[in-house]
């Protein structure tokens, strides 16, 4: 009973925080913008969140996080719409919906596909949020005993996981991570107060500025890549509510995939290094394997939408677990959230939940509110998004560049930051040309200072003894995991070099992340 009372009081803190006019507004803004960006092909959560980052600078902390989290959820809902209606992936996490969603649209069943996608997304979100609610405080409790060695090992694991589990070579991924760590070094050394690699520029004393770097690497690179390319237009269909309601057969075929998808997504979402692109394909493959009618997949099988959509939304909720309890982001999006938190002066780690209960519980409650907003936006108001898909890209990308520039300039009223933005935009583009991945660099830059801090602390405590990382049991376990992960990813990469995944060939469009 005591536990229940405790939980109820936490919930009430959360409701109190989330149901304020400003936080409701930020929540709505976030989910709306996220849905918007998700619906437009080629723009993903990373671009959306990095576009909003400069705004969060001037906002209260809980409002900022509520808005960014809303964007994350919204993008997952919106991306499915684009994939289903246009046959072009809206985001990498919804790319797999093209396989069965687009055939359904061609069969005139697009409305039903959208409806099931929405319900599956809602279900997935619910599972993810519930897991976050119950697991996060427990994990945070466990983590209170962690020392510098444990943190170093965990941060290293997170970095290695994200850098190796990508499409490209893990060696290049980790190399990019190291470059990112070096980018994080630029600025003032926290221990001695001296400057590092600032080359006499006073603007660099605070570091390169993660907003400029993030927006450069994601928004600008993306625009350079896509500008001047072809544009896609959706067939203007009308979607009345009646057209969208699925039949009983549809429901019967969807509910188990939703369960399976959300379980898969929730499990993988909490693990660092997994991307929603990867897990949704996995969910699709599982459904196809388990189905009694595998030949229907690719021609409009509703399971092919229900499972992946539940999967990627469940992943959103659980992705917050390591970020909010340990301060270790599992992917680039969480890294951006972490960056936004650090900018606000919030110290990430296990004490976050106990020190900022209104922030944590407010976030949880606003996740629920946000998902309800999204269901309303995506079912009755679906026509709005369909009309949006008619806007050609060449009208949009100047707007993206403009907002990026204004955003970066306005954080510190500094034109120097625009240089950084441009530099990293070009760096990102040429990295893509050289087959390097961009995400590990950003993660290295955000986590670099933390990694170095924990390393120096561990060395101080152990008096320079490197063995400390293997002597303490938790740290040792994590280190063993890290090494195993490195070996496994090398093995998997070399094994797959000759093979091409048949899924990746079904979808040619390359979305970032």
């Amino acid at each position: 009973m005591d536990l229940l009372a405790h939980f109820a009081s936490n919930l009430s803190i959360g409701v109190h925080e989330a149901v304020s006019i400003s936080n409701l507004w930020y929540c709505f803004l976030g989910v709306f913008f996220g849905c918007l960006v998700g619906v437009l092909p080629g723009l993903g959560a990373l671009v959306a969140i990095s576009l909003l980052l400069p705004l969060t600078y001037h906002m209260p902390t809980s409002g900022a996080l509520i808005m960014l989290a809303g964007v994350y959820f919204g993008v997952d809902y919106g991306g499915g719409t684009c994939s289903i209606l246009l046959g072009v992936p809206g985001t990498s996490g919804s790319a797999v919906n093209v396989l069965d969603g687009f055939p359904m649209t061609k069969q005139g069943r697009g409305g039903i596909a959208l409806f099931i996608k929405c319900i599956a997304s809602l279900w997935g979100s619910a599972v993810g949020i519930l897991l976050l609610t119950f697991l996060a405080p427990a994990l945070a409790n466990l983590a209170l005993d962690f020392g510098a060695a444990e943190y170093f090992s965990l941060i290293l694991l997170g970095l290695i996981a994200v850098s190796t589990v990508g499409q490209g070579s893990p060696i290049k991924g980790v190399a990019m991570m190291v470059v990112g760590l070096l980018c994080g070094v630029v600025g003032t050394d926290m221990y001695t107060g001296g400057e590092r690699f600032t080359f006499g520029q006073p603007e660099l004393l605070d570091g390169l500025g993660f907003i400029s770097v993030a927006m450069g690497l994601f928004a600008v690179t993306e625009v350079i890549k896509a500008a001047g390319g072809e544009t896609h237009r959706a067939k203007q269909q009308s979607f009345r509510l009646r057209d969208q309601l699925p039949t009983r057969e549809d429901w019967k075929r969807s509910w188990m995939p939703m369960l399976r998808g959300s379980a898969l997504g929730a499990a993988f979402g909490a693990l660092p290094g997994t991307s929603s692109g990867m897990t949704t394909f996995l969910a699709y493959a599982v459904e196809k394997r388990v189905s009694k009618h595998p030949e229907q997949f690719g021609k409009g099988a509703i399971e092919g939408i229900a499972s992946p959509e539940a999967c990627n939304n469940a992943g959103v909720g659980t992705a917050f677990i390591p970020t909010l309890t340990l301060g270790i982001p599992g992917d680039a999006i969480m890294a951006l959230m972490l960056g936004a938190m650090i900018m606000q002066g919030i110290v990430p780690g296990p004490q976050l939940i106990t020190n900022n209960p209104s922030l944590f519980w407010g976030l949880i409650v606003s996740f629920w509110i946000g998902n309800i907003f999204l269901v309303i936006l995506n079912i009755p108001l679906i026509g709005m998004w369909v009309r949006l898909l008619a806007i050609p890209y060449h009208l949009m990308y100047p707007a993206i560049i403009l907002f990026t520039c204004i955003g970066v300039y306005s954080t510190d009223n500094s034109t120097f930051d625009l240089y950084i933005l441009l530099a990293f935009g070009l760096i990102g583009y040429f990295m893509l040309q050289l087959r390097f991945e961009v995400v590990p660099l950003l993660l290295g830059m955000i986590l670099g200072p933390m990694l170095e801090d924990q390393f120096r602390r561990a060395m101080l405590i152990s008096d320079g003894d490197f063995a400390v990382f293997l002597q303490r049991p938790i740290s040792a376990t994590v280190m063993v995991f890290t090494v195993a992960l490195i070996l496994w990813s090398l093995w998997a990469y070399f094994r797959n070099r000759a093979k091409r995944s048949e899924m990746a060939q079904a979808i040619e469009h390359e979305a970032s992340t």
Partner: protein
Amino acid sequence: MLRVDVRDFVGGGILVALGLFVAFYAEGHYKLGTPVHMGPGFMPFWLGWILVGFGVVIMAMAVGTSVKVHALTPPPLNWRSAIAITASIVVFQQSIERFGLVPAAFALTIIAALAQREFRLARTVMLGAFLGVFAWLVFTVLLEMPLPAFAFPS
């Protein structure tokens, strides 16, 4: 027959160069210290050498006798796009403080639009004007940011 994958070779080479630069700069300019009493140069020095190591490995892997198959296909190299976007950002940067938000936004839009193959002047000018006003409404008016719509060079 020896095959060299140019992209990987160049990529690895850049990493080696970068790593060497960082390591030597760190050693030359900052105190390295010991593991217990780390100076500011310790981390960058070692990270620089680690990067050199990776670069060498990547370069070595780029040279071989078998045909290289890659998981990542780079997007086609679009110089026009890169130059146009670069120029648009530079123009914005130079104009925002001298001329204000609306002219800077307008200039950025026109120049960024040059990235397209079919550049239509009338439509782009309209878009530029629209975005200029829209940006002013959203950022200066709605969000109350200190971004003057028009400024006059002093």
